[in-house]
């Protein structure tokens, strides 16, 4: 019983995190890296490091065949995919099954069903989990107006063939909807060759709230409470925390129950996250998607639950039954995480790879830093820009914020540009302290305020 040798198919801080969890369980670790990462911390602390291919991720981290070949050839009996890269590709999970290697994650069928947006929506619907109220394809503007009256304004008009924000129109009332409907159809025809439209409720003031779940693959699923990740830029999270303190207790219960129902129906296996949009004004939540993997922000849930979720992943994948019950997960206090990225917020978040000449991490109780960097680390230009996660714990949100401010004040990285100053500004912002933000806050308010301050102090 249990994994004896684990292959880590990832890089960066999550590779280090997984290797540490493996070591804590006495599991040997083999990491597969690209030639850009042979000197990385993960490559050095693993029991063995093999070079898969060149820096180009398509020929290294994104090749499931190379990964499984490397795992087989090094005698590994399990593969942890981390997040990103191949973590949500059914092909890797499938190839693992074919070679009798335990995939540390959900079954390939689950990944596939949740990876497709339409199929995931159907699963949520069948589980009775609320979706953003909306229609299917509409035949006429009259039909649209009738539907909007039921859904409630504002509504967003979308092309059924569209995506990525193109061909979307916002209507605050029936008159605007009438005016925009034909224009939207025209534009959809031109852009996608299909003028078919549908409408959806537009959530003006939303929070991104997500529930960390863990399933045994046989129908038992437990949760670790929710996280709030509303500080986002272009759907990239910058700050995450647990719990979401603005949720009314009754809504929180419903949210957890919805996440459990959806994943229990699937006999979900291993760690996952059910993401929701929370409509602050209506006090309703809607299903977004399921991330069928470990997430970047899992540490805030680990702090509030005092559970090692990555170690739990390895134990379950090794064939150990999920020994915990829901009542074993006792949530306390507040976890807060700031992503530290090698990018320049003053220059449209341009990535700033390079050699780190100074690396002073804040030391102290209730502070955790998940990273793969240290002094003299070269941040390669080929991959994402996150270099560290600064995570603090407090008995309540206020204490966590204070500790984060203090920790950010002592964090010092030289040699490359980072977003530390921005994070300090955001955590210290009165709106954030008052927890009066939305998913649009960073782009509409936080960032412009930071940039104007930044520019004025430079002059």
């Amino acid at each position: 019983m249990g994994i004896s040798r684990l292959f880590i198919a990832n890089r960066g801080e999550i590779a280090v995190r997984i290797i540490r969890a493996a070591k804590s369980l006495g599991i040997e670790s083999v990491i597969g890296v690209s030639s850009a990462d042979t000197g990385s911390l993960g490559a050095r602390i693993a029991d063995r490091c093999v070079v898969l291919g060149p820096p180009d991720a398509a020929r290294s981290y994104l090749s499931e065949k190379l990964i499984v070949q490397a795992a087989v050839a090094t005698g590994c009996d399990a593969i942890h995919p981390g997040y990103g890269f191949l973590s949500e590709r059914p092909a890797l999970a499938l190839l693992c099954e074919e070679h009798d290697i335990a995939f540390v994650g959900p079954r390939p069928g689950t990944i596939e069903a949740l990876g497709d947006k339409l199929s995931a929506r159907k699963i949520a619907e069948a589980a009775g989990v609320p979706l953003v109220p909306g229609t299917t394809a509409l035949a006429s503007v009259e039909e649209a107006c009738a539907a909007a009256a039921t859904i409630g304004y504002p509504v967003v008009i979308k092309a059924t063939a569209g995506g990525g924000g193109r061909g979307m129109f916002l209507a605050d009332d029936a008159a605007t909807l009438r005016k925009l409907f034909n224009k939207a159809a025209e534009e959809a025809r031109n852009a996608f060759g299909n003028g078919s439209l549908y409408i959806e409720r537009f959530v003006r003031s939303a929070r991104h709230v997500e529930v960390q779940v863990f399933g045994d693959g046989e129908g038992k699923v437990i949760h670790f409470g929710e996280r709030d990740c509303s500080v986002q830029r272009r759907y990239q999270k910058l700050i995450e925390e647990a719990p979401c303190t603005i949720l009314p207790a009754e809504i929180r219960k419903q949210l957890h129950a919805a996440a459990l129902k959806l994943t229990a129906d699937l006999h979900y296996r291993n760690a996952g996250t059910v993401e929701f949009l929370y409509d602050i004004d209506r006090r309703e939540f809607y299903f977004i998607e399921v991330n069928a993997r470990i997430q970047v922000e899992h540490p805030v849930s680990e702090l509030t639950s005092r559970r090692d979720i990555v170690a739990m992943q390895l134990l379950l994948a090794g064939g150990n039954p999920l020994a915990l019950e829901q009542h074993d997960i006792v949530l306390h206090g507040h976890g807060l995480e700031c992503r530290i990225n090698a990018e320049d917020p003053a220059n449209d978040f341009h990535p700033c790879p390079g050699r780190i000449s100074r690396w002073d991490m804040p030391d102290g109780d209730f502070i955790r830093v998940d990273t793969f960097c240290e002094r003299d680390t070269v941040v390669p230009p080929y991959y994402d820009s996150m270099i560290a996660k600064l995570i603090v714990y407090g008995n309540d949100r206020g204490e966590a914020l204070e500790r984060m401010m203090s920790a950010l004040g002592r964090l010092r990285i030289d040699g490359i540009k980072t977003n530390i100053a921005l994070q300090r500004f955001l955590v210290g912002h009165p709106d954030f302290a008052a927890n009066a933000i939305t998913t649009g806050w960073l782009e509409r308010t936080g960032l412009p305020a930071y940039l104007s301050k930044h520019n004025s102090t430079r002059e």
Partner: protein
Amino acid sequence: MKEPTADDIKTLIENFEGSQWKELSLQVGDFRIFLSRDPNCIVPGWLKESQPAGQHGGAPRGETGASQVTRSVGQPLQETVAAPAAAATEADIPAGAVAVRAPNLGIFYRAPKPGAPPYVAAGDQVEPDTEVCLIEVMKLFTPVTAGVRGEVVNICIEDGEMVEHGQALFHIKPKA
């Protein structure tokens, strides 16, 4: 019965190589030997438990190079090498020679199929487009070409071993 001699083992390996057998497992008294042509073979339990002294990490290498026992679960791992394998062998390149390197991680095969003569041997003349070996990734066999005109002076890897990206496979002395 007395312990087999080195000559006995050599003869055994030669016979195995000359045969159509995929695997051979033999026990004589306390002496046990396991030979396989398949680098992904299932290693017998006794091999996992007892490690012959001085064989830390990697496959025990047959004298002739045709028969290998693969790394497998339970065998100790090689010490982590901070530098990639490619860098470690850099110093070994004979003066005036260049290395043919692995394009990616995979299993190295010297011959187009098991039992067939190898693509090249030491002393052979090669052209830039001469195929010198196969690299296997999940049953997909990709030929590697010499990339240079010259004479093969060294074969760095045993047949059936795993190679990493950038690892030297052959040393070739270029000729004009």
